[in-house]
């Protein structure tokens, strides 16, 4: 177990990157604290897997350093880093039995057979495969194979970190839940540093203590699930987290008011006039339909998703979403919307602007 430090790290798949756009992973400084569970969240192609492969040593970064507990391992091969990694698609050794598959990483490190047998039993129990230990891995279903991959990742107790690269993509929903819970339990019991890559926000938010949101090769926010929800630092975070995502509305901001199409929206804090593209962001949870107050909207559709209703509406020609409680009544004459002033964030060029107490 170790603290992993990324120091000025960046990576490009091109031999001579010229501009910033050539970098798949833009410059990054970050400490992964020892024993914490992180989720790396972002849409496909945003550099998540690149970052993971650099940490595990499968990829050499174009610039910067990686330190494990202060020791530079940037050019150390994977085997010296003692890291476990589970990949998106199941990797099993077809000709070996399930048992031998699980034992493989331990045997390669020359652990004695008694210990190996014990660990294999424990892991088989954890992934629920005790019954098939003696079967060949070939011919098992995709999710059984992925469970073996997960098991192989967890079989070593002394790893510096456990990395998961969207490991539950091929597993069916019920089993997904169960395995995720087991991963959490494993984390609680053994305190490995875990980094879990996913594009599924539910998976990220339930698994991790801290979520790292990546967008276009850049880390845009690192925070607890609550921070990501309440104060998205970047419009992408607002949009990516939450269902539906945050409403982002172009506006002018003056002091503690935002102006949209000539109408005022009160803000919780005061702002100096921001520069560049100015927008306000409001989560659908903090918008409310009303008959009397607020700005005019036109309701287009109401979706009842059980726990609450999602109202799709037209706000000065722009789509916005509003969430209303399950028992809230939505009537035809409700054609105004109000925003909870404390939860309206201001963005300049997509980054959140810090306000001052009003």
């Amino acid at each position: 177990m170790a603290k992993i430090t990324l120091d000025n790290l960046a990576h490009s798949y091109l031999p001579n990157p010229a501009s910033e756009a050539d970098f798949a992973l833009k410059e990054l400084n970050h400490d992964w604290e020892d024993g914490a569970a992180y989720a790396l969240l972002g849409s496909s192609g945003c550099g998540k897997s690149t970052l993971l492969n650099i940490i595990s040593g499968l990829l050499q970064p174009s610039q910067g350093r990686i330190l494990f507990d202060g020791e530079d391992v940037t050019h150390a091969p994977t085997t010296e880093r003692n890291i476990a990694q589970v990949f998106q698609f199941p990797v099993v050794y077809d000709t070996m039995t399930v048992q031998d598959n699980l034992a493989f990483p331990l045997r390669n490190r020359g652990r004695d057979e008694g210990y190996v047998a014990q660990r294999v039993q424990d892991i088989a129990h954890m992934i629920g495969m005790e019954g098939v230990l003696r079967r060949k891995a070939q011919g098992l279903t995709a999710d059984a194979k992925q469970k073996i991959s997960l098991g192989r990742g967890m079989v070593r107790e002394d790893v510096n970190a456990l990395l998961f690269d969207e490991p539950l993509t091929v597993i069916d929903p019920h089993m997904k839940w169960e395995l995720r819970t087991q991963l959490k339990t494993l984390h609680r019991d053994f305190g490995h540093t875990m980094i879990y890559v996913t594009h599924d926000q539910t998976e990220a938010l339930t698994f991790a203590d801290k979520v790292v949101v990546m967008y276009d090769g850049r880390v845009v926010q690192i925070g607890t699930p609550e921070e990501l929800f309440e104060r998205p630092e970047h419009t992408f975070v607002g949009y990516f987290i939450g269902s539906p995502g945050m409403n982002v509305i172009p506006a002018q901001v003056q002091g503690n008011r935002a102006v949209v199409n000539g109408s005022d929206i009160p803000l919780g804090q005061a702002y100096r006039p921001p520069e560049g593209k100015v927008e306000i962001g409001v989560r659908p949870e903090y918008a409310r339909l009303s008959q009397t107050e607020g700005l005019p909207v036109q309701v287009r559709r109401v979706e009842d998703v059980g726990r609450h209703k999602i109202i799709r509406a037209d706000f000065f020609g722009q789509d916005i979403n509003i969430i209303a409680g399950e028992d809230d009544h939505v009537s035809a004459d409700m054609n105004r919307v109000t925003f909870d002033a404390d939860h309206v964030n201001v963005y300049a060029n997509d980054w959140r602007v810090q306000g001052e107490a009003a």
Partner: protein
Amino acid sequence: MNKTVNQKAWFLVLPVLILVAFSAVIPLMTVVNYSVQDTFGQNEFFWAGLIWFEDMLASDRMWDALGRQLMFSGIILAIQAPLGIFVALNMPKSGIWSSVCLVLMSLPLLIPWNVVGTIWQIFGRADIGLLGYTLDALGINYNYTQDTLDAWVTLIVMDVWHWTSLVALLAFAGLKSIPDAYYQAAKIDQASRWKVFRYIELPKMTGVLTIAILLRFMDSFKIYTEPFVVTGGGPGNSTTLLSIDLVKMALGQFDLGPAAAFSIMYFLVILLVSWVFYTVMTNLDKQEG
């Protein structure tokens, strides 16, 4: 409802029947016909029963040729299969050099058999051939027309030169189909190079290797042109493989009956060995499944 009965559809099958009849059934049956008859020329045939088969089974000549043939196929398989895999493992996986390698490797496969034979026949000559002359100059007494061992070595090296590419190309195709994640996982699991080969690469190549070995076996078992051009079956009978012997018997001595019996047994041996190969290798696959 009454079904219309129309047997004209059979005519649609006719072209195929005719084609197969002329290309396979009739020639094969002609051979079967010869194998049970005797002739003294003038197109007069007499019923001979199974006498040619009995003769052939008792003939040292055929057993010797079969022995040489098995030895030849065995040796070239033992060299070409591992060598082909080794070459495939060391080929560049992508980029311009990969293409260059592929083209270079395919070249020997494109050369007609008799040309290959001629190339080596000249190559090995001590008076004008590069190989023969060089060996001679080095003081090695190499002469494939007089020395049995030299003749065998020449034939085997020639076949390896000609056909290892096939095994290598097929093995390469198998290797290319392995996703990167397997190699990455192996690194994470700290697998040695040997284990990567044994547990990842070899299992993924089993399918194509089965085909490669089967093809190489059948081809080498039928080989005729190259040894005929290089050694003509000599010195003595030392490189008279089955097909060379068969042609000598059928066309050289015009012993149609025995030659026909011989070729039927030849055919059956190839069929049998191929079947055994195939069954063993596919079962191996299943066991692993």
